[in-house]
């Protein structure tokens, strides 16, 4: 039997009110763990449930909000004990009323990556423990008071993967319509709604008046068929006492406007009592919920940033190894910094989304996809388009992606549809459908529309609506199939008009094999936009392409009063768009000493005209760094200056490295070093400084990042054969994990030296942990490297 059948009834569902409020009024002290009451004082919980049921609540939340392993740490209780007890007693109370009981899941209390350090899968398995404890007892699951979209996703996945129970999800927003971690109402609706929550809601944080406009937004953006619910606080708390003052009558009055916007369930949160719920229940008894005016919006999002394909969207195409040697090298060397620099460059240029393709035949693409998506999320908030033909890679990427992604792509082949559409459904992603199938690309527009129809139909069978399907009618190369350009645009217009889908094109392919590609690309882009293109996959670093997008938005009245156009180009003097200042008089040594980046880069380029790169490194760059380093040791140069010098040397080094690579003289490498900030610690500035300085001295540094588990350090040392490892920890609480990392390296008998550094370390403590060196600062770490590698 469908466990969600009861939910289909067209009626208002009355939810209960504040649990914490009631327990505190009955004597629970602030800071005590209410979850323990299921065992220590079940009568108290029964009493609260009973009062809400009497008041008219039809769905009550079992007292399991914080019954996760994380939150119960140190309490002496296991989640299973408390959850079974809490749900069972709630069921017993609910039975005479025919009411439903929800397993209540709240936040774990620790932020997930990338905002925090908790691993996504660890969160999923903690939530899964809660679900498994209650799945045969509860009638539904409620995930509530979430402020981190990634955590809400983890909880929802745990419910979906471990039970068939219906699930409600509610998040807490501030008045600006965002949660503390920046998640907007629309991102919540698009992501969690897309993943198949039965109901979406807003709870806590604010009173009915403040939540109303947010709920209106939720009603507009929640997917069709999803219920919307609300559990507001009894007004805003008194800042000094934390108490709530909105009376039951006023609460009910303030809830009135909600009943015309399309919500189907309501209750209360902090400060609300059975009296509040009784009035609400009385009001809604026998009423039918107003229908919700859903808009079929094509939203794609990260937690923070939402794009609506109703407006034209520029998708950056540069994270892709096809035909790019440097990018391929980055993938093989797992050089995440290079990949991230491609993201920063494109978003700075105006890309609103990024295509992510990390496929190479000789790398582990699924692993790389996961790592890349995770890394991108730490530095950019634009939504991602995951680009692969490998379903495993897509799944790994989708699983950790926080938001509603776009999958690139399926095609009309049965096998492709079967492999990829279920993934899109499970993770709530939208999908690109290529208008081709086993017979290739149909030559005519008619043929491509037919394929598109099949894709839309297949998507619908998996529950993916047409407005989440983006058809790619395929750009053919004008040099080979000249008549193809117009055929593509014809197909694009028809798909959009006839199928209710969105459209997407990789634009740059049009000009392949012809000179001055930019002319063809911008013209084709403009034509395609006018034909109805929604997502343009382009190189945003080419100014003319972004200009075409921005100009189009002006001429189609999407950029009102040309505001964004003026913002982008208002200060540009078109006569001087190519700056490249030729200062040139300052030598490289002086530029590094003074910490001037642009001058150092310029000077390096000049030096390269007469000298070999390696000679420049040895005779200018390193002596300059040494001079600054000595000044630092003497106290005449201060850390900010040392860092600016390091930055200048870094800028020069980029050019020198390139020259060495071109000459096949890639051997500036003085030795391999692995560095990391240890598990549990997220302070990485010191470690980053060490990396830059070591790199400037010509060492090949593998930077594992922050919060790095010991096993990962061991693995990296094995893989790279590094002779020196640098570990950083700032806190006393993370020193044990430094010690553990050293222990594991030693246990594996890896032939490397270990240096450690960080605020609370001392030479004695370093020796005690078994480190070979204590580095008091970044300069010192370079001295240690010299000692280890010689010269």
């Amino acid at each position, binding site marked *: 039997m469908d466990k969600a059948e009861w939910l289909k009834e067209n009626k208002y569902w009355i939810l209960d009110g504040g649990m914490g409020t009631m327990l505190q009024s009955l004597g629970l*002290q*602030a*800071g*005590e763990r209410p979850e323990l009451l299921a065992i220590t004082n079940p009568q108290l919980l029964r009493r609260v449930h009973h009062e809400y049921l009497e008041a008219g609540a039809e769905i009550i939340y079992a007292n399991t909000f914080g019954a996760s392993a994380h939150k119960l740490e140190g309490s002496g209780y296991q989640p299973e004990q408390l959850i079974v007890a809490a749900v069972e007693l709630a069921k017993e109370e609910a039975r005479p009323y025919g009411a439903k009981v929800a397993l209540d899941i709240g*936040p774990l*209390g*620790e*932020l997930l990556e*990338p*905002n*925090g*350090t*908790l691993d996504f899968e660890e969160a999923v398995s903690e939530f899964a423990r809660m679900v498994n404890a209650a799945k045969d007892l509860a009638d539904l699951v409620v995930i509530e*008071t979430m*402020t981190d979209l990634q955590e809400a996703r983890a909880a929802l996945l745990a419910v979906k993967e471990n039970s068939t129970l219906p699930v409600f999800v509610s998040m*807490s927003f501030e008045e600006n319509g965002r*949660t*503390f*971690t*920046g998640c907007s109402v629309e991102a919540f609706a698009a992501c969690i709604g897309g993943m198949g929550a039965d109901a979406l809601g807003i709870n*806590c944080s604010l009173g009915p008046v403040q939540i109303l406009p947010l709920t209106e937004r939720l009603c507009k953006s929640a997917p069709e068929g999803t219920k919307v619910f609300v559990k507001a606080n009894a007004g805003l708390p008194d*800042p*000094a006492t*934390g108490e709530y003052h909105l009376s039951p009558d006023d609460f009910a009055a303030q809830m009135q406007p909600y009943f015309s916007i399309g919500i189907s369930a309501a209750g209360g949160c902090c400060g609300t009592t059975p009296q509040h719920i009784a009035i609400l229940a009385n009001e809604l008894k026998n009423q039918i919920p107003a229908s919700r005016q859903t808009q079929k919006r094509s939203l794609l999002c990260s937690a923070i940033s939402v794009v609506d394909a109703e407006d034209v969207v520029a998708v950056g195409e540069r994270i892709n190894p096809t035909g790019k040697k440097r990018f391929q090298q980055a993938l093989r060397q797992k050089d995440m*910094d290079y990949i991230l*620099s491609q993201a920063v460059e494109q978003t700075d240029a105006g890309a609103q989304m990024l295509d992510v393709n990390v496929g190479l035949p000789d790398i582990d693409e699924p692993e790389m996809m996961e790592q890349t998506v995770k890394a991108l999320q*730490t*530095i*950019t*908030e634009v939504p991602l388009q995951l680009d692969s033909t490998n379903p495993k890679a897509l799944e790994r990427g989708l699983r950790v992606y926080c938001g509603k992604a776009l999958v690139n792509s399926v095609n009309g082949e049965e096998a492709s549809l079967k492999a990829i559409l279920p993934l899109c459904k499970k993770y709530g992603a939208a999908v690109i459908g290529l208008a081709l199938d086993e017979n290739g690309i149909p030559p005519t527009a008619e043929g491509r529309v037919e394929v598109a129809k099949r894709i839309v139909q297949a998507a619908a069978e998996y529950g993916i609506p047409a407005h989440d399907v983006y058809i790619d009618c395929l750009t053919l190369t004008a040099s080979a199939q000249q008549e193809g350009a117009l055929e593509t645009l014809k197909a694009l217009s028809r798909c959009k008009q006839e199928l209710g889908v969105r459209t997407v094109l990789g634009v740059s392919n049009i000009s392949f094999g012809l000179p001055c590609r930019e002319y063809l690309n911008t013209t084709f882009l403009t034509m395609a936009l006018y034909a109805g293109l929604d997502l343009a996959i382009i190189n945003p670093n080419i100014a003319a392409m972004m200009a075409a997008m921005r100009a189009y938005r002006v001429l189609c009245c999407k950029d009102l009063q040309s505001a964004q156009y003026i913002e982008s180009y208002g200060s540009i003097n078109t006569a001087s768009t190519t700056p490249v200042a030729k200062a040139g008089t300052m030598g490289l040594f002086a530029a590094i000493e*003074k*910490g*001037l980046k642009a001058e150092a880069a310029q000077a390096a380029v000049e030096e390269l005209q007469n000298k070999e790169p390696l000679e420049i490194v040895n005779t200018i760059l390193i002596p300059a760094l040494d001079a600054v380093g000595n000044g630092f040791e003497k106290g005449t140069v*201060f*850390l*900010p*200056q040392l*860092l*600016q010098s*390091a*930055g200048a040397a*870094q800028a020069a080094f980029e050019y020198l490295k390139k020259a060495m690579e071109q000459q096949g003289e890639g051997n500036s490498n003085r030795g391999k070093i692995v560095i990391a900030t240890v*598990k*549990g*610690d*997220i*302070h*990485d*500035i010191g470690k*980053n*400084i060490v990396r*830059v300085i070591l790199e400037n001295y010509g060492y090949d540094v593998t930077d594992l990042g922050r919060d790095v588990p010991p096993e990962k350090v061991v693995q990296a040392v094995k893989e790279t054969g590094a002779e020196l490892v640098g570990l950083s920890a700032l*806190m*006393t*609480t*993370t020193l044990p*994990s430094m010690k553990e990392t050293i222990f594991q390296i030693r246990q594996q008998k890896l032939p490397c030296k270990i240096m450690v550094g960080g*605020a*609370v370390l*001392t030479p004695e403590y370093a020796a005690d942990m078994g480190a070979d060196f204590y580095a008091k600062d970044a300069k010192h770490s370079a001295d240690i490297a010299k000692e280890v590698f010689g010269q």
Partner: protein
Amino acid sequence: MQLQLPNELPWQEICSWMGYPSHQQPDPQTISLAQQASKIVLDSAQPRGIFQRDGLYTNEQGTIMWRQMPLLGEDIDLHLKHCTHAVWMAVTIGTKTEMQLRRIAKDVALSYAVDAAAGLLAEKLADQLQAFVQEQLQQGEYMTIRYSPGYGDFPIETQRDVVRMLDTQKQMGLTVNSGGILIPRKSITAICGISNQPVKGRLAGCNHCLLREKCKYRKEGKYCGQS
């Protein structure tokens, strides 16, 4: 509660946070770096703060308690001497600045400056909240300066209790990770004692401090409790 962002963070203070001794005039390039950092931080900060007041008592083992939270160590004992109540406060600059920091991580000079400016902003927000709490005192009540876990011998693990008892995740988005680190990272929790006789509190001396051998304040004959 929402705290007010200052219009700017003084470059002099950012430079001091970056390790410039107070008697040394920074070079113009470093000043401009500090100003750039101030802008990045103020443009991305989402300041929040909360506080709660409750009575202090001594349990059977002789430990000072605030609700069910033990306040351990000699330093906090001295700090709260003569106090009957205490206010726990917490401030954060939010998660967005952290993303900016990660984005500029390759530029070590700038990220060091932004890190310093972000730390400075957290302190300024704590000053602001502390002043607000001060205003709420009854007539005849006196309040100590603030004292944070991790200073002296007051265990950093106390953060965990504070986060739970003040319900900071729900109230302001502040959490603590398995290593006892507050997340968002640029956040402060602190306790101020309240008494009906004039009290100042006593911040940790250098005796218990782990940083005593490398502290730049100590080298200048000052300590971190002095502003």
